[in-house]
């Protein structure tokens, strides 16, 4: 089972640069790992941190957000605004004890099919090293866990 495990990576690609970059990689017949599932978004600034968290909670092993290089945003400042959100979110997740490597960000332009392929290779390797996501993952059979109330010693079990 462990041997055949392949990470699932969710990629949010911006419509104007990274999605076109991924497309270029495809049309140029550049190979990259099939672990990524792409969702096309209008801009990397569109990414609400809730998307990333929801993906991690749903059992995705890694999330990639990719947008235009700084200064190249189709909407002028979307990626700059996104960058601030990503910086704080990544730090916050690491602080809480969720592997920061599961949340990846990149700038890929429409002309960088090669870079896209190489980057997907890199992050797939990185996430393979981290192993399957265990923390924060909601499964069908997840139940409320046992806990002891602070004041009394009687155990409360919510099932």
């Amino acid at each position, binding site marked *: 089972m462990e041997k055949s495990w392949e990470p699932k990576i969710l990629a949010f690609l911006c419509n104007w640069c990274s999605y076109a970059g991924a497309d270029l990689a495809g049309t140029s017949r550049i190979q990259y790992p099939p672990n990524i599932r792409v969702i096309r978004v209008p801009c990397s600034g569109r990414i609400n941190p809730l998307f990333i968290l929801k993906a991690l909670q749903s059992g995705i092993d890694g999330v990639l957000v990719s947008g235009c290089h700084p200064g190249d945003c189709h909407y002028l400042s979307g990626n700059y605004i996104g960058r601030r959100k990503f910086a704080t979110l990544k730090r916050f997740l690491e602080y809480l*004890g969720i592997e920061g490597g599961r949340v990846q960000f990149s700038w890929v332009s429409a002309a960088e099919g090669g870079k896209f392929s190489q980057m997907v290779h890199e992050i797939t390797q990185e996430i393979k090293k981290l192993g399957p996501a265990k923390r924060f993952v909601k499964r069908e059979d997840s139940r409320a866990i046992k806990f002891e109330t602070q004041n009394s010693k009687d155990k409360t079990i919510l099932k």
Partner: protein
Amino acid sequence: MSQLAIQEKIREKAKELLSKKEVDLIIGFSNWTLPLRTTPVFIRTPEGTESLIWNSFCENNLATYIHKFSRFRVGIIVKGCDARSLTALSLEKRFNPERVFLIGVPCQRMVDRKKVTKAVKGEILRAEERGEEIIVEGEEFKTVLNKKDYLYPSCQVCTHRTPIQAHVLVDDPVEESPLVEIHPGVNQFEKKTFEERWRFFEKETSRCIRCYACREVCPMCYCTECFVDDYRPKWIGGGLQPQDLQFYHIVRAYHQTGRCSGCGACERACPMDIPLTYLTQKLNQDVKELFGFEVGLNSKTPPPLSTFEVDDKGDFIK
């Protein structure tokens, strides 16, 4: 100035504002039925100002109530943290600053009632404040406690006790130095290993009963529809599954990035005693480190996540 003198000045100012009809309403603190506790009051008549009080238990963040009285001209009694929350709210255009009058009280740091309750055996029936001491009385005991040992962690680290944004200050500004450099919660949490940190977070959040008191009490949580109430898309499950609780706590804290004044109201409101300020204080530290921003100090600087600098740090991006 003694606290009684401050209290007198607050009443005087409130009375003046109400009788001159400069405001329709004063939001302040009043005594309640329980010792160690105060309650927010909303006063509309000059005579009513006699019930206003000031002591070390005026812990609520009154900025929370500003949303409810947007049709009125409001006078509001503010500590340092309340004033900073109000500045942050005015930046987000939540109210018209011209219709709000701030009566600023330099804060003497608030006393943690839970710590006091734990320090004595038995039920506290009376509590009195005398200078730097609190005298608590029960049926069989009378203890004198030093106020300094029973402060809220968020008050220990506070460096903005004087509400400089206020229209009038009832006392001289206080010296702005923290009692503790780093927030005790953040400090302890950061010392843990990666594994321990997650286990701590998992354990603490598992107690959550999703009463949303932390959300309701927070001045910055004003969305008419919170992400937990969204049905389409449904971000979060409705039950007490641990991952849903974790999701709620991560996002609640994250939504405070660059907006939290660090008043600690969320933690005080929690009926399950879940620590919460170690999350928001860390985000405040991050925002200060990354973007050099501190909440509520300036009514011109936009919130950090709604703006950008071209040379922001981006070394984590591939």
